[in-house]
């Protein structure tokens, strides 16, 4: 079986959309996640509560329900954006909760004594974050963040359900022409595995780069 060039191009476009959504949502969710974590460990009680509520909400609500709510329902209330930005924003706010959880557990890995020692030396909150807490927790969170990014790449497939023409959706429509579902879906699965592998290998590389040899 030979795939015609047009259909092959459709598949490549789909892959491009998947990668674009994954990269933008990945960067965005890390930025939002850092912000939420800052609010969650900071001294302002209101922000701590709000950040906790944010994380709990998105960790306990299905992504597909949020996508459908944002794409099909919210336009009725006048929240209208093009499809791909809408899906990307939903992915950002959803995965940011998982990033925030990973970051918080990273902060918790820094030994209490280290933070107390920093305070005893007279470091301010910003100084102890800058020189003691963030450098150490960053090393501990590389792997968990990588896992969140892999989950995000898998979750971009759900965009197909709300009509984004990304890889899964393109595979689905091209399959209608050739009627070779097993071949097509298995190959698409291999592409997703390759994406996950790239993320996994690069987080492994970063982790080795920043590791402290004690």
């Amino acid at each position, binding site marked *: 079986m030979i795939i015609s060039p047009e259909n092959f191009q459709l598949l490549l476009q789909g892959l491009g959309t998947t990668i674009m959504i994954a990269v933008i949502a990945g960067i965005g969710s890390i930025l939002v996640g850092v912000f939420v974590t800052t609010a969650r460990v900071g001294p302002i009680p209101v922000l701590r509560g709000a950040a906790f509520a944010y994380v709990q909400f998105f960790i306990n609500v299905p992504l597909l329900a949020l996508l459908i709510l944002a794409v099909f329902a919210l336009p009725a209330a006048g929240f209208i954006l093009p499809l791909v930005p809408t899906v990307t924003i939903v992915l950002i706010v959803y995965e940011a909760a998982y990033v925030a959880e990973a970051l918080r557990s990273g902060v918790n890995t820094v030994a209490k004594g280290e933070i107390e020692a920093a305070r005893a030396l007279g470091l301010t909150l910003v100084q102890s974050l800058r020189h003691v807490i963030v450098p150490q927790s960053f090393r501990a969170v590389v792997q968990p963040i990588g896992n969140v990014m892999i989950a995000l790449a*898998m979750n971009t497939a759900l965009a197909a359900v709300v009509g984004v023409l990304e890889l899964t959706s393109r595979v689905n429509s091209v399959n209608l022409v050739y009627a070779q579902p097993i071949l097509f879906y298995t190959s698409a699965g291999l592409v997703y595995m390759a994406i996950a592998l790239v993320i996994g290998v690069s987080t492994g590389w970063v982790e080795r780069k920043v590791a402290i040899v004690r």
Partner: protein
Amino acid sequence: MSFIYDQPGPRGRRNILIGSVLSVMAIAGVVALALWQFGSHGQLAPEVWAPFTQWAIWKYLLTGLVGTLEVAGIVAVLGSVIGVFLALGRLSHFRPTRWFCTAYIEVARTVPVLLLIYLMLFGLPQLGINVPVLWKLAIPLVFSNSAVFAEIVRAGIKSLPKGQSEAALSLGMSSWQTMFHVVLPQALRNIAPSLLSQFVSLLKDTTLGYIVAFTELLYRGQLLTSYLHQLIPTYIVITLIYLVVSGSLTAIASRLQRRPRRKAAPPTDPLKAPTMGHSAAAIH
């Protein structure tokens, strides 16, 4: 409480107060804007939300919730049993078993469940295999969740102090006895919170029933919108039901995590005979 910063002094307290007031104002502003936006499009009108005061509507949705819990239960049982065996296989000394289980876990963890569901929907009928709609949803979920359960169980087994299995082996237990009577029971108790969190995640994944047209909560919600023609209230109510159900499970999981491990004799006092089986759990 947090120990990142000192007890705030008078200036610190003033800054915290200013920060609190500003953030309350910002949050209230965002909420007010959103409500205004909803209101100006008539989404806050009582008649829009009125259907959700009727028991019939709730009954319709709760039937969907029962379907959700049913699939989630099936996937949890099958997935965790298969997961335990995959974990044992990945830790096996017999190379082919180890390779097979490792390959299965790595594949199943990195393929979107949606693709597997499409494979079930369009691929298997081509081979002449047709399964009931429940299994079109459950089989892909079991496939991917068993791999995640396997990794959790493996982490639990590996984090157990080595002395436990060494002690069991030195007492003359076979390696199977060691695994099933000594290592696994302790490992499973330690990983209970992670297992529960994974259950929440698979409960969320059952929303894929929306695609295979299985009677679960999100699919029921979609059917309801075509009857009520009120998308916003319906999907908000659906989202909140998910929030309540998985939120309470998450709360249990974090309570389990915070609960002190089984009491054991303090390691500094060798005279008090420790209760044998559980002492290692305390060390972990």
